[in-house]
């Protein structure tokens, strides 16, 4: 892994080129399959960005769907407004800025939630972020501009394979490069032992807030892609179950293992598509999987290398 990462910029370039080429062939692709592949790309962005918070930095956030919804709503409202006032032809160049603004607003939400709550540990942080997700949902439910309980519909279908996978590649690049640097060892140091980290001159709060903000940014981007992929969104889509699904991807992938987390995102997106039973009992299966993992494979299901210390904090 470290050998290929010698110049991750080259890898990023290759991934972008691959995304562009795949996008060119996407027109001939079966619509259903294309939809599933876009779902996978979005899941990868969500899982890799939550992995920075929950995996690398060791904070237990259950608020990812909340950040995702912020990005989804903000981006959708921008493109809807642009379409209405300037016509559909502006969408081509409005889409990316709208995604970006959605990501930035989500990052701001991450900052606002993160600063007061990151002093909390473990279960408490989980509860606060869970509460945040629910509050955001209730807000969108009651804001008329956001469509209330019925949400937004008629969002232009702008999300294609190309942008989804370019952005997924960027998310992987950003999280990977960040963590694989001397600066980035601080995230893992905070995860391993906060007292020791601060005694080595690293500011734990700073690292946690940074992880939160970057994680929320990419969750917002994923939300924007999601909104312009499904073309309708409503508050129920971004409930606790959505956050939980991403948490399962991170845990299954081995908390902090990028490769494993990507694999988990792919498998957990595909499984319900191919197995009816899985789709119906998804949440029960996820819960059982997590219990099993915590007991039998704390290093993650899809991690086959050196054993990591069990996660106890």
């Amino acid at each position: 892994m470290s050998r290929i990462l010698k110049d991750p910029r080259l890898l990023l370039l290759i991934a972008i080129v691959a995304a562009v080429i795949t996008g060119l062939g996407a027109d001939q692709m079966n619509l259903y399959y294309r939809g599933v592949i876009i779902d996978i790309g979005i899941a990868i962005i969500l899982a890799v960005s939550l992995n920075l918070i929950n995996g690398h930095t060791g904070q237990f956030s259950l608020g990812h769907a909340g950040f995702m919804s912020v990005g989804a709503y903000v981006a959708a409202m921008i493109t809807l407004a642009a379409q209405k006032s300037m016509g559909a032809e502006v969408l081509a160049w409005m889409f990316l800025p709208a995604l970006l603004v959605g990501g930035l607003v989500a990052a701001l939400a991450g900052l606002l939630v993160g600063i007061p709550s990151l002093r909390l540990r473990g279960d408490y942080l989980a509860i606060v972020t869970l509460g945040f997700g629910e509050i955001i949902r209730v807000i969108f439910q009651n804001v008329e501009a956001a469509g209330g309980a019925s949400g937004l519909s008629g969002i232009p279908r702008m999300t294609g394979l190309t942008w989804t996978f370019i952005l997924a590649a960027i998310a992987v690049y950003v999280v990977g490069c960040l963590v694989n640097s001397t600066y980035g060892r601080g995230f893992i140091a905070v995860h391993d032992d906060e007292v020791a980290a601060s005694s080595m001159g690293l500011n734990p709060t700073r690292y946690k807030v940074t992880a939160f903000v970057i994680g929320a940014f990419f969750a917002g981007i994923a939300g924007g892609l999601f909104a312009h992929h499904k073309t309708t969104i409503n508050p129920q889509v971004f409930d606790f179950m959505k956050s939980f699904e991403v948490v399962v991807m991170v845990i299954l992938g081995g908390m902090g293992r990028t490769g494993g987390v990507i694999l988990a995102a792919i498998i957990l997106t595909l499984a319900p598509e191919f197995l009816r039973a899985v789709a119906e009992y998804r949440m029960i299966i996820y819960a059982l999987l997590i219990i099993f993992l915590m007991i039998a494979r704390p290093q993650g299901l899809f991690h086959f290398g050196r054993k990591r210390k069990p996660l106890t904090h």
Partner: protein
Amino acid sequence: MGASLLELENITIRFGGLVAVSDVSLCVSEGELVGLIGPNGAGKTTVFNMITGVYQPTDGKIMFAGKPTTRKKPHVLTKSGMARTFQNIRLFGSMSVFDNVRAATQLHRAHGIRQALWRGRSHHAGEKEVEDRVMELLEVFSLQDFRDEPATSLPYGGQRRLEIVRALATQPKLLLLDEPAAGMNPSEKEELMVLIEFIRKRFGMAILLVEHDMKVVMGICERIAVLEYGIKIAEGTPKEIQSHPKVIEAYLGASGD
């Protein structure tokens, strides 16, 4: 003797009804090696925790390098030039030996998110510099062959040494060692004391050494302070301490330690 680096002025800390440290004053000069001894539960680790900002004293003041440490967070104090080891080893458990030390070099670096993401020439130059420094330190402590091993796979003595290396990587003016010889056999203890003297000579820093076994520190400390039940009962040269009636009493009372 150099200028005074660390001054504890009548510090007291209470945990509920328990007065863990009571009215303790102590001074460490630049480049000095001072021992802080006392039976288990005397309050030595608590003194360390107050110096390093983990706890705030209930009363009294701590000055480091001429400035009060009041309400400063541990990471700020470390940046200002103190570093510690822990009585119960606290290495970064999921990291390699190399990365444990690498993480402790970040505090003085200007490189952050921007360089990590851009991955330009300055990023690589910076990382190379860090690697050279870490390897140099690991070699001094004969840990270079274990650089890619998980830190927790080292034998006990190795983990203790790695904690010292990690603390040194922050480039401290004052090194605080909390029972570095705990759990070692007599010959390992001997070796460690030689190592501590060596560190002091090579890096020219002041060291405050906590130990509950009086014999260990006698040979290397210039000055020793003795704590018992949170109170400083004696201070002086090793010779003075050895024959101090209160110390003899405290240690006879706590014999079997």
